[in-house]
């Protein structure tokens, strides 16, 4: 037998492969840099720019805008409001979505597919369309008030206030919550429920002690998702609130487009991101505690 000829095969692939990879990834990297990385980094930078009393912006670094956040009561209230309203909406969405998700989880076959399509279908339409539908329902001449009138009950103001925004936003976020819950329902096994039943647990106890705990990961995920969507939601608060409901997102828009105070808008945006970060941290802690 011949001795082992240790001839390492020349791998032409290596260098030309790298060139190929770079070529294939260049376009998306470019768009990502121009449309995402640069703008976001710039945003952070902009929050430190100065705004003169005239409204003009000077490219000088200052902490004035950030100081305003802390000292001006309007902004302190704005932030607290946005967070608390979003938390409330998240909770409401959870309560409304859970029955649907559970029912969907227990369905099978074509019926399940139909239900799934129904749940997803609102996501396929624009936020404007869905908010418009809510205007039709909640406005003074809308569905609810006309129904109340027909029953002889006093009309309720549900638009241009927090109530309308809450109701509308809750419904709009439901599909997201439902999908997140469904994803987390994987741990549910009918046999576990059966075991609990044979051990003497009545249905509501089974729900409280078995189903609910097992679905906590899905609940956590859904809450995180809906909270961040609520905090940053713009269209619905603007249209249903009619400019009289002040939340972070609407304020960002106003400062950016109307007042043209970009540093202020940037600062508010960074704040939104900070709130996001906080929510994410809470979520990961919660997940660790659950699992």
């Amino acid at each position, binding site marked *: 037998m011949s001795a082992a000829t240790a001839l390492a095969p020349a791998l032409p692939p290596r260098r030309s492969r790298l060139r190929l990879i770079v070529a*294939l*990834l260049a*376009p*998306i*990297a470019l*768009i*990502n840099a*121009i449309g*995402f990385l*640069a*703008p976001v980094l*710039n*945003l952070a930078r902009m929050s430190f720019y100065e705004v003169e009393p005239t409204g003009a912006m000077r490219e000088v670094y200052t902490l004035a805008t950030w100081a305003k956040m802390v000292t001006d009561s309007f902004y302190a209230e704005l932030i607290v409001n946005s967070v608390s309203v979003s938390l409330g909406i998240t909770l409401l969405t959870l309560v*409304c979505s859970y*029955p*649907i998700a*559970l*029912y*969907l989880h*227990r369905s*099978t*076959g074509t019926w399940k*597919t139909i239900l799934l*399509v*129904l*749940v997803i*279908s609102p996501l*396929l*339409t*624009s*936020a*404007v*369309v*869905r908010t*418009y*539908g809510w205007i*039709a*329902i909640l*406005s003074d001449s*809308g*569905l609810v008030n*006309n129904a109340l009138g027909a029953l002889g009950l006093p009309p309720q103001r549900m638009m241009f206030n927090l109530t309308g925004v809450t109701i*509308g936003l809750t*419904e709009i976020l*439901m599909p997201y919550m439902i999908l997140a819950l469904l994803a987390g329902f994987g741990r549910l096994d009918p046999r576990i429920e059966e075991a609990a039943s044979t051990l003497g647990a009545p*249905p509501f106890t089974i729900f409280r002690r078995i189903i609910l705990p097992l679905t906590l990961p899905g609940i956590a995920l859904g809450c995180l998702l809906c909270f961040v*969507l609520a*905090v940053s939601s*713009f*269209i619905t608060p*603007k249209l249903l609130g009619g400019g009289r409901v002040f939340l972070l*997102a609407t304020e*960002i*828009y106003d400062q*950016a*487009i109307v007042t043209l105070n*970009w540093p202020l*808008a*940037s600062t508010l*945006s960074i704040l939104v991101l900070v709130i996001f970060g906080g929510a994410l941290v809470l979520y990961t802690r919660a997940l660790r505690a659950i699992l």
Partner: protein
Amino acid sequence: MQIMDERPVSLTLKILAGVMFAFLLAPLIVVLPISFSGDAFMTFPPTSWSLKWYPAIFANSKMTAAFWTSLVLATVVTTISLAIALPAAYALVRLKPAGAEVLSSLFTAPLLLPTIVLGLAILIVFARLGLLATFPGLVLAHLVVTLPYALRVLTTALATLPIAVEEAASTLGASPFTVFRRITLPMMKSGLIGTTALCFLVSFDEVVLSIFMTGPRISTLPVAMYHHVEQQADPLVAALSVLLVVLSLVVVLVVDRTSGLAKTFVK
């Protein structure tokens, strides 16, 4: 699915779910009758019925212009998204460079940002680049949000392909490019269709970014509708909404017919 005893769903759950479903679908259900309203304002229930709002859409020059812009925009954005995301997905999944996961996270990061923040960020940079209220600017802004979706769907589709089949083609004499063209691409068909539908709908319905990027000279349909609702809430938008919902349903149906809805999106 399970041959074992089907758990009877409790009546309480059925009722609760039913009520919540009604809540969920309320706005969409309400919009339909209003589109046939004969009133000048958005009252519900309508006091009179008419079909006048449908033709009114086409008479409204702003709306029709915005519609065409949205249509062309969505088509352009979808095409470019596919052209960019497909090579990127191939590079990340098949060529597996070092740091592929980091890159993948970076490219899908735009989805994590709230659109209001992204919109502001892009507004500031694009203003300086002179891209505001221009078609190319809109395309670029939309690409920022459609590319992550496209990349996710395509990388998943590619990753679930059995690589042995591509190897088999290779042993039979197909060059890498031929393998991609004759084997990989056809096997990715449902992923490609899903990406196309997703990108199209995302772009067509995109509103927050577009609000920042549009102006009197150029507008998209969702933005035009937004401004219209801001000023006067009349049934015109209802008629328009119905048409848009139908459009979305058509897209979904096409996807389902060609490759199965569940298979495309439920991973």
